[in-house]
């Protein structure tokens, strides 16, 4: 696949000002809600330290905790599967469904199944997959991937949703009352939930000591998906493991507050054993995670608990829209995760950041996200993934800026400066700069010339 041009995608998103403004306002309101709820917890920063330390400990002993989980789960009557990559995961799911003759699958939101592109895989094999998370369902009906890891359809206004539902369900396209829309969705999916042959959930956490898969949701759809059909499948990234319920308590305090600024989600569900006469399968997925764990600079992204706080606070994400990243994970956390999946395809993502550092400071598990974005830029240069035009400009700038005599020639005549300076002052070309801004006017005299004229006499050697 070709390299994702996030900048071009974002520019298109911005052209639709009402939507861009709607999205930015909504995302910023979540950042504000996060601040308010963090303020109510005096030990907030200690919790972040603790959460980071628990994740670091668990990731450092990952194999042992995964084996402990497997032993606990087996005691609970759960079958545990291990998938090396996305294909193996999809194959295992299809195989389980096939053995039960299951053709109707309902599922709650799972970024992992998005990452594995499971839906098209199963649909090609005659399985109907129905998303039960409201936002995920909206995106499914509109044939779009999630635009945010917590609220997949947050990019859509209620009016947009009304149009999607009108097309899919024949509801009133002009009624954009959220209560009406939620009701429409419920009417249509509840029937499918009752009829389903199998149910699937992702996992917010997998607790090694209990063998429980824990989900935190507000809609209750994970409980319906996981409990109504007799056959339950949970897909879990191996980094979701935590040692004990005591550890879980730390994350349960941080996750909803960081995510949407509420003290706790409506449902915190522990799926521990199959229902009576049923089966429960847990599929642990690696899909590049072990390789990332071995990367000295980039393993900390495995601490991520998918709260989305870095996205909500990111000035670039809020104005770019989530789809502009062309990836499963988007925003700051997406920038540092995606190149581990495909370095060429996502080689431009590390440049879609102002490096403001806000992301690292809201992250509940203290991933140094903006430092990693910066480090990824260096990797892109090392791996020759920087566009030729930019690379040549940087080589030229490096040459001029390391030679004072060349620098003086470049800046002496202001007209020359205007032509040459962008390469190292604004770093690129003035045409791009000037599209939406006036270019700065060079002064009549540089500081250097002024100093020579006015102070050179006093210059000490």
């Amino acid at each position, binding site marked *: 696949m070709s390299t994702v041009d*996030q*900048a071009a995608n974002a520019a298109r998103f911005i052209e639709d000002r009402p939507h861009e403004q709607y999205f930015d306002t909504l995302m*910023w309101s979540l950042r504000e809600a996060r*601040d308010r709820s963090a*303020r109510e917890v*005096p030990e*907030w*920063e200690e919790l972040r330290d603790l959460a980071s330390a628990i994740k670091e400990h668990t990731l450092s002993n990952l194999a042992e905790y995964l084996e402990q989980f497997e032993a606990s789960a087996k005691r609970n009557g759960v079958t545990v599967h291990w998938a090396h990559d996305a294909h193996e995961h999809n194959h295992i799911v299809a195989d389980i469904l096939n053995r039960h003759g299951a053709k109707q699958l309902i599922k709650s939101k799972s970024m992992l199944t998005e990452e594995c592109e499971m839906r098209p895989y199963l649909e090609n094999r005659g399985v109907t997959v129905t998303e039960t998370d409201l936002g995920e369902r909206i995106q499914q009906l509109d044939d779009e991937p999630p635009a945010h890891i917590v609220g997949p359809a947050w990019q859509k206004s209620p009016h947009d949703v009304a149009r999607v539902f009108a097309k899919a369900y024949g509801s009133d396209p002009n009624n954009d009352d959220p209560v009406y829309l939620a009701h429409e969705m419920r009417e249509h999916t509840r029937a499918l939930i009752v009829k389903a042959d199998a149910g699937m959930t992702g996992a917010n956490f997998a607790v090694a000591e209990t063998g429980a898969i824990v989900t935190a949701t507000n809609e209750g759809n994970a409980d319906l998906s996981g409990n109504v059909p007799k056959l339950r499948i949970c897909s879990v990234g191996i980094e979701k493991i935590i040692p004990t319920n005591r550890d879980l308590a730390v994350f349960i305090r941080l996750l909803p507050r960081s995510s949407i600024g509420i003290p706790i989600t409506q449902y915190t569900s522990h799926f521990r054993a199959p229902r009576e006469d049923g089966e429960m399968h847990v599929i642990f997925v690696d899909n590049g995670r072990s390789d990332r764990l071995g990367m000295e600079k980039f393993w900390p992204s495995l601490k991520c608990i998918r709260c989305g706080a870095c996205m909500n*606070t990111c*000035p*670039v994400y809020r*104005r*770019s829209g989530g789809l502009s990243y062309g990836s499963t994970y988007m925003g700051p956390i997406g920038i540092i995760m995606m190149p581990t999946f495909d370095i060429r395809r996502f080689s431009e993502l590390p*440049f*879609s950041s*102002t*490096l*403001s*550092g*806000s992301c*690292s*400071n809201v992250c509940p598990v203290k991933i140094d996200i903006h430092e990693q974005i*910066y480090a990824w830029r*260096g990797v*892109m240069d090392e791996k020759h993934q*920087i566009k030729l035009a*930019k*690379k040549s400009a*940087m*080589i030229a*700038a*490096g040459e*001029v*800026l*390391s030679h*004072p005599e060349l*620098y003086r020639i470049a800046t002496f005549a202001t007209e020359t*400066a205007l032509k040459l*300076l962008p390469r*190292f*002052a*604004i*770093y*690129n070309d003035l045409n*791009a*700069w000037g*599209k*939406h*801004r*006036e270019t*700065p*006017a060079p*002064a009549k005299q*540089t*500081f*250097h010339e*002024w*100093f020579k004229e006015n*102070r050179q006499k006093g*210059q000490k050697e």
Partner: protein
Amino acid sequence: MGPKGGVAMQVGLVIPCYLDVFYPEVGIATLELLERLGVEVDYPFDQTCCGQPMANSGCESDSRATEEHFIRLFSRFEYIVIPSGSCTHHVRNKFIAAPPSPEREHVSRHVFDLVEFLHDILKVTQFPWSEFPHKIALHNSCSAIRGLHMASMSERVHDSCFNKPKALLEGVKGIEFVDFARHDECCGFGGTFSATEEAVSARIGYDKLGYMEAAHADYIVSSDMSCLMHLQGCARRLGSGMQFRHVAQILNGDRQ
């Protein structure tokens, strides 16, 4: 007011490339201000740049020679002062293109943003020669806030509030600060980003400008001229009459 006990200290002054060419008046104000405070200022004449443009673009190897040049010129100073949080952040925290050496270490440890130097080293609180009877929106850059910790950040909700640029400006007669929405959100400049992702960069800048205008600011003031260069570009394109000043200009006595 002056340095403690009136002891002269020698300072190596860095005037970043974009100030040299586009905003020499900020360099002049910085120099005059330091001299006014009794500091002996040395401006190494062969200086060029700190290397950030290349390193920020991922091209660290291309910034090596520039950073080595910087180290050669500045490693002899006890204090290296730059009127730019962004360049200071680079030299202090990201100056790794040149091979490690005691000189490199020295430069990173002894570099200060002008505001830090005035606030933390000289501990200046009053600027009796200055007066700025205007409403200003103070913009602190992300490098200054989250890189150099020159002000508390809104993300860390339990930290005690502090703001070094503001503390200095409070020593100027007549100045009035306005509160504006999203006060420490990024302005959208981002160095390389301003050109490679110009649409998003400008959009963030327009928004920032809008919040400051809504608060009836007459001037946007910052200790980072690169943010202001970007915001000024946005303002002029939108036909806004907003004025822009570097903190050094106001502290040095510019009245408008």
